[in-house]
């Protein structure tokens, strides 16, 4: 990777708060800051849980519709129910 490309990546990471930098002698040390990543993980976890709940609700709804349709059918043709 070229030096300017490294700079660009470090700048974006620093601005996003994912890394922090400090000077140590003649070196500059970049350190991963887990805070923003943990925030992201929490958000994704909550997002996933919500969708799981939504999908569970959808599944229940689909079963209910199928049952209702079956019941409606059997009301019209009671003989088919036993067939």
């Amino acid at each position, binding site marked *: 990777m*070229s030096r300017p*490309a490294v700079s*660009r990546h470090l700048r974006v990471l620093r601005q996003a708060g994912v890394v922090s930098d400090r000077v140590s002698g003649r070196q500059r040390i970049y350190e991963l800051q887990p805070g923003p990543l943990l925030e992201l993980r929490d958000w994704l976890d909550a997002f996933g849980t919500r969708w799981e709940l939504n999908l569970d609700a959808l599944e229940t709804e689909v079963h209910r519709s199928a049952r209702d349709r079956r019941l409606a059918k059997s009301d019209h043709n009671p003989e088919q129910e036993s067939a």
Partner: protein
Amino acid sequence: MRTPIPTGKLSEDGSRLTLERTFGVGIEDVWAAVSEPARTARWFADWQPIEGDDSRVRYQMLHEEGSPEGIMTIEACEPPSRLVVITDESIGSWRLELTLTAEGDRTRLRLTHHLDPGIDVGDVGPGWEYYLDMLTAAEAGEPLPSFEDYYPAQRDHYTDQR
């Protein structure tokens, strides 16, 4: 700024990357721009000698995130026409050769990067285009270019030559 057009050429055997720029000033002036610390600071790095070491200098890249420092070995210094340096491990021991040629009242600068195996020319090529345009802009007193205009836009120009 208009979109920069990539110019670099990879040698047939893939061992050398060459880029050229022409300046509307004399060779002494271009030599100063690539060798005097106050001038190199404008587009690349400030540098100073290391005490007791005739062949190496310490430089600090002033236009990069965090202004990283490094050490360069001067392999050849023949004013005003040839400079060969080897960068330190921090960016990968690159052997870089600058040659200046007077052409009337203009000067042609040629940068040759002697590529070690495993170097991704698609990465370093756009970096050099950017740095030579930094030099050109600094000498012309124009605003410095932005690396975003070079990478990844110029990547294919280099990888297609492999």
